[in-house]
């Protein structure tokens, strides 16, 4: 009887210890989730999928990409902010419009700097102003001239509300005296599809989103909204070259995890991403996606996000842009 009791006790103990032992594995013991708060097919999503492709090369566990679009990126980012800070929930696209632009325009349900830990920067996406191939516009001057002559609003496709593209186009409208009506979609892919169908007059997007359409002859590029020309499309003049004094940093694309994630886990993720950044195959993939690789480690990236947010706040104040 005694032996039986002992046996039972051991079995029960074993039953309870198994899960404990399973939980004590080293990071990562299961696939990590890379959440993209934008619709599939946009520039953030493409970059996330490029990261996912080479993640397995440097980490024993694969990365699983999940798209959670909505609210200009807020929906998905908020999900990350309140997810378990164990490193298995990564936010890809940190530094997008809703992280560095939106806080200056409206109240956020979370603090993009305090509630998230910047892991690494991967790329910077400039904003390109384009128009459909059949459009009468051939340069920014044509758009301004049209607006002055007809006095009608210029409908503009942008990927999300209050994102970097929306802001760049709104800033252009204010500075050039053009009545720009930005029409937000849920991601760059949808916005460019609508523009390709000729349903809007002009549109904005990141090089990775618009270059395929330019190559296919569906879009004409009008201007790049950067201080200097974008290396991925050197033939396209900047807004400044065309006499409109507006330039932004575009959209920054990095990786973040929720605040409270253990330091060693953040370090592991940072090292893994920086390794991927040097992988020649990854660089080739990113080149094909028309996304410049501009990697930064956790510490520098945190400072960069702070600086970029301040720059945008200043621009918004100068141009007196308000939403709603």
């Amino acid at each position, binding site marked *: 009887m005694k032996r039986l009791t002992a046996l039972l006790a051991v079995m029960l103990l074993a039953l309870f210890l198994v899960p404990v032992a399973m939980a004590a594995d080293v990071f990562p013991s299961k696939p990590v989730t890379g959440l993209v708060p934008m619709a599939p097919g946009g520039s953030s999503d493409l970059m996330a999928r490029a990261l996912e492709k080479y993640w397995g090369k440097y980490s024993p566990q694969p990365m*699983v990409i999940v798209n959670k679009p909505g609210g200009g990126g807020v929906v998905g980012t908020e999900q990350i902010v309140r997810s378990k800070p164990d490193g298995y929930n990564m936010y890809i696209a940190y530094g997008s419009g809703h992280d560095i632009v939106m806080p200056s325009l409206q109240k956020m349900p979370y603090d993009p700097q305090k509630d998230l830990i910047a892991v690494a920067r991967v790329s910077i996406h400039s904003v390109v102003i384009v128009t459909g191939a059949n459009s009468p516009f051939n340069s920014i001057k044509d758009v301004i001239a049209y607006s002055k002559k007809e006095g009608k609003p210029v409908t503009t496709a942008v990927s999300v509300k209050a994102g970097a593209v929306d802001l760049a186009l709104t800033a252009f409208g204010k500075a050039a005296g053009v009545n720009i009506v930005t*029409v*937000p979609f*849920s991601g760059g892919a949808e916005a460019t*599809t609508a523009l390709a169908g000729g349903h809007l007059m002009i549109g904005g997007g990141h090089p990775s989103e618009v270059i395929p359409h330019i190559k*296919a002859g569906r879009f004409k590029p009008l201007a790049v909204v950067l201080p200097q020309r974008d290396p991925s499309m050197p033939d396209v003049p900047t807004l400044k070259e065309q006499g409109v004094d507006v330039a932004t940093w575009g959209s920054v694309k990095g990786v973040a995890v929720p605040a409270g994630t253990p330091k060693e886990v953040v370090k592991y993720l940072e090292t893994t991403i920086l390794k991927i950044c040097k992988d020649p195959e990854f660089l080739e993939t990113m080149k094909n996606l028309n996304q410049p690789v501009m990697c930064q480690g956790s510490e520098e990236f945190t400072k960069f996000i702070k600086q970029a947010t301040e720059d945008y706040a200043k621009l918004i104040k100068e141009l007196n842009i308000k939403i709603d």
Partner: protein
Amino acid sequence: METFSGLISGFSIALTPINLLFAFIGALVGTAIGVLPGLGPAATIALLLPAIYVVSEPVTAIILMAGIFYGSMYGGSTTSILLNLPGEAASVVTCIDGYKMAKKGRAGAALGIAAIGSFVAGTIGIVGLTLFAPLIAEFALSFGPPEKFSLAVVGLLMAVTLSGSSIIKGLVMLALGLLLASVGLDPISGKTRFSFGVIELQSGFDFVTLAMGVFGLGEIFIGLEAAVKVEVATTKVGSVWPTLKDWAASRMAILRGTLIGFFIGVIPGGGAVISSLVSYAVEKKVAKHPEEFGEGAIEGVAGPESANNAASSSSFIPLLTLGIPGNASIAMIFAALLIKGITPGPFLIQEHPEVFWGVIASMYLGNVMLLVLNLPLVGLWAQLTRVPFGLMAPVIILFTVIGSYSIQGQAFDIYSLIGFGLFGYVLRKLKFEPGPLVLAFVLGPMVEQSMRQSLLMSGGSFLIFVTRPISLSLIGLFAVLVAGQAALTIYKRFSPNN
């Protein structure tokens, strides 16, 4: 020619061992679950949706889902014929004559003709999909926000008006579906709606959870109540090969069913249910012995079964070219595509040719597999219909609970699953059809966003929906259909023959 080379490359993708395996698994599992009493295609796909999180290649995942979709359609007809229990509305018609045939000892013939008809119709439907989808995709670019809005709304309304059941209840389902879709952060203003302080609700309801709750769990709750024991017509199936006489009777029915199904499937809001109803009506009209209908006429099985399979194939056309799912089952495939990072739309064929052609090619293969699975193994499936409810019900509950938990790893989703299950139960008790609810939930964000985009484009004028030709013709087409239906109803009521 481009189509031809696309199809060839599609076959080279579909024929890789892994994709072949998943097409087979999909067909097998789809049939197996679809055969279980009470679980129709929509419920089957909903139950198995979490599986796509595990399959990493998008093509493979969609091939799996398409296989499940087809398999469950086949499985559903088996349950209808042997048990008189339609898994969903699309098989209701099959019950009428199929069950009668089974009672008369002709279960084999009924199952056989259903499988053959489904195979022929499914294959012809895919040929149509192969030929027409690329053409429609080019035209699809002219669908801007106003057109998308009109198409989505017309599609939703059609799903209700064509279904033949109560229009008021159908509209209530649509409105509730749209309302459920609006829970969470508003995509345009960034404001939270209807979350009432619940953090988990800020990102809105999860589609898979909703579908599994309303279809899977709701069905189980109803089953719990039904004290009536299911009467199995027979499990002795007999020969599945149709006799020459059967073949002569059903040959044309299969062809007519295919044509009807194909065209109805393309219409948003159409799909398997309506096409099977229309096919049955047509067969009854053209039959030499209409009095045999309802007493076990083989045409009454062959026509509708062909129609609903042709419709399943052709309903992929609006999904893959416009990115607009036409019915609840296709809406799940739509969700699966989005989860796998693919936005179906005009550029799908160019941007993801491997997905487009791979899936189409696998459909050809899947249909062959299903024919092979169904004709010789039909006896085995018949045995599956006898799985006792006491075992089936809790296992399905485990499926839904673990499935909904696995999506985000939060217990909240299990509670919302149960909530949707109870909701689905109440809907069934009050004689509501949950299909339009799920469809509206999926299309909700598109309806709202395209409406607001259109108003931005027009400067706040609703006239934009009637001044653009495509949008206007969609609305016009709908008006004509409704008027036609109303006229038909009135004519029937006052015609002296009735």
